[in-house]
């Protein structure tokens, strides 16, 4: 077993254990865990059977197999960060919609309970500290 194999194996095992722990503690949703798990398995496979990588590099006419690894890895990371940007954008849009609805609900609540007209102001400091 050469050192490259050991490194690859260690990295893959660490990723899998971390994923498992995060899932167990409800820190990660399955849909995000899946892609990382697949990537960890992929790098594990390549670490154990480097011949696969050499074969693929040969097939694609890539002279240095490790460059192929870097290329694929950076593409995958790009794809994943794009996906995360998309998810964040979606969340921001939802947060915005919720904030707007909250404002309108407070408006309605003030209208239906006129006695509370001043109450939201009194509650303001606590609201702000939560933000």
């Amino acid at each position, binding site marked *: 077993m050469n050192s490259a194999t050991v490194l690859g194996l260690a990295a893959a095992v660490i990723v899998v254990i971390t994923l498992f722990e995060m899932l167990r503690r409800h820190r990660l949703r399955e*849909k*995000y865990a*899946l*892609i990382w798990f*697949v990537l960890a398995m992929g790098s594990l496979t390549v670490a154990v059977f480097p011949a696969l990588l050499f074969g693929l590099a040969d097939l694609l006419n890539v002279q240095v197999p490790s460059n192929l690894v870097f290329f*694929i890895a950076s*593409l*995958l990371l*790009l*794809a*994943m960060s*794009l*996906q995360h940007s*998309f998810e964040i*954008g*979606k969340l921001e*849009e*939802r947060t*915005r*919609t919720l*904030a*707007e609805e*909250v*404002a*309108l609900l*407070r*408006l309605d609540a003030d*209208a239906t309970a006129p006695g509370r*007209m001043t109450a*939201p*102001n009194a509650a303001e400091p606590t*609201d*702000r500290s939560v*933000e």
Partner: protein
Amino acid sequence: MLVIVPAWNEQESVGPTVREILGVHPEVDVLVVDDGSGDATAERAEAAGARVARLPFNLGVGGAMRTGYRHAVREGYDVAVQIDADGQHDPRFLPSLIAELDHADICIGVRFAKPDDPYTVRGPRRWAMYLLAKVLSRLAGTRLTDVTSGFRACNRRAMKVFAEHYPAEYLGDTVESLVIATRVGCTITQVPIDMRRRTAGTASASPVRAALFLFRAVVALGLALVRKWPANFDEGVVGEAGPLPLDVA
């Protein structure tokens, strides 16, 4: 009729603005949308006789306006007018805007429409506004001279569009919302108004900021033109169950 006033940290001017609107037009309802202000904007507006919708945090003009338009749609108002809280829009021009709604869905109160207008801008900012006006005019099929104006009136049809889609991005609140409106078939017109000078603060005076404004205007306009409308953010492009786009790589 509902007058929507988006306000963010405008405690000095929001009171006089609301009082002026109600003074000239006592029959309208005024809704101030407090865009997460840290000052007394909401209290001053309430004291001046407006209803106040308080956003829990700052969303930008787009968020404030969509809140206002949602309220207008739900409460069944026939006309919604938007007026800036900084007092640069004179509410006495309101009837002339609303009169235009007989033959258009949206009416913008614009400066630059008269040769003797005291409000002038130069340099990149002027090019940006010229470009925006040209493209929007073309889209709307009518001559529009200033599309970044925050003084506009809309009927129920346009109100429903804005209640759904009112972009939160920079310049989205003015330019992109108009593009969306034309895309879904709303008609736009304009009337000339005198714009008062801002009491405090100038709009992007330095050349760098003006150039930045031009750049952002082009980006905002370009995006607005190529985007698909109506958008459906909540469903997302891949939907909830969609896994990560493995095939991208």
